[in-house]
């Protein structure tokens, strides 16, 4: 490769607290949207990776943040690519109807952070970044769409075990 490959990719972790169990009829309309929206993510510009449970099409059965909390985690080329998918694709319909299916969050439920290109983040890593965001507010280590940092600004925080430099 002679072109300058991006050295960092953007990771995202999102928690959603279920109002009802996934097999409850009141969640049916959400469950129906899972496969089409996940397929849209897989085909979206700038998409690199998303968390799935082994042998399953998604990660809804993984409950690392509590029995009634589902997680999504993914990696994207840029914040813009993730933003366009999140809010300017079929995924927006899921977001619009979020109050039907999920409890409102009091604390931050979405965290963004930069990872070295090629690195696949673990759920623990994501939860740790979310805890950082909740404890310290947005920083180059852990931020949100409303307060993004560039990969350059986050250069010292790329590794999973990086400690805050400030």
């Amino acid at each position, binding site marked *: 490769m002679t072109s300058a490959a991006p050295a960092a990719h953007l990771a995202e972790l999102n928690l959603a607290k279920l109002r009802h169990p996934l097999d409850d009829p009141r969640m049916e309309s959400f469950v129906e949207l899972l496969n089409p929206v996940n397929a849209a993510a897989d085909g979206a510009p700038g998409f690199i990776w998303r968390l799935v449970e082994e042998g399953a099409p998604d990660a809804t059965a993984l409950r690392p943040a509590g029995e009634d909390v589902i997680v999504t985690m993914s990696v994207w080329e840029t914040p813009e690519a993730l933003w366009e998918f999140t*809010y*300017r694709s*079929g995924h927006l319909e899921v977001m619009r109807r*979020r109050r039907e299916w999920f409890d409102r969050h009091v604390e931050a439920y979405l965290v963004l952070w930069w990872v070295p290109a090629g690195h696949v983040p673990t759920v623990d890593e994501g939860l740790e970044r979310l805890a950082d965001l909740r404890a310290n507010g947005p920083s180059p280590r852990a931020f949100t769409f409303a307060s993004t940092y560039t990969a350059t600004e986050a250069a010292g925080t790329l590794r999973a075990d990086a400690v805050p430099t400030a």
Partner: protein
Amino acid sequence: MEDIDAIAALQDPVRRRLYEYVAEQGREVGRNEAAEATGVARTLAAHHLDKLAEAGLLESGSRRLTGRSGPGAGRPAKVYTRSRAERSISLPARDYRTAAELLAEAAEEAGLDDGLCAAARRRGEALRGPAESCDDVDAAMELLAARGYEPHIEDADEGTGGPASRVVRMRNCPFHAVAERFPPLVCGMNLALLEGLIGSDGAVRARMDARPGECCVIIEASKNNIH
């Protein structure tokens, strides 16, 4: 350039026609095309297009309109698109945008989506007045155009529907700045407003079908959805 100067640049009728033509196309427009479409000489069109670009109302670039490249492909032509920047002016000075952002932030934090959407639906119905629900796509387009959505019929090869299904997409989101900051809340509000405006008993319906760079709502015949 100050907003007031930029807007004043549209006072010239020829310039205004050119601006509106470029904005309506939703793509890059060359000088020849703009001149022909507005019925003015090419040099005059070029002069006004450049003035509009200077005012920041249009963006200009150059492109080989033949689609060819390399030696012999011809000189690149100057092309224009509408600028993404917003211009507004209020006399006396008012700042509804900050008010909208603060209200949206508070509504988002308090989870007031349902209440906001109910209010938006009522407002849409009130705007429609005593008229019946929209029964055809053309009537819906008129309503949308009057409210600044810049509706256009989606090209047949653009969408997934067959040629029989006419889908209206909108180039402009009237709530763009707030919608970018609070997408689910404000886009949901916009959908509810349009549902109220179009009405729920007619043959057309509003549906969310977000895509980059456009309003996130489309209007389509409700009968198309019987599979």
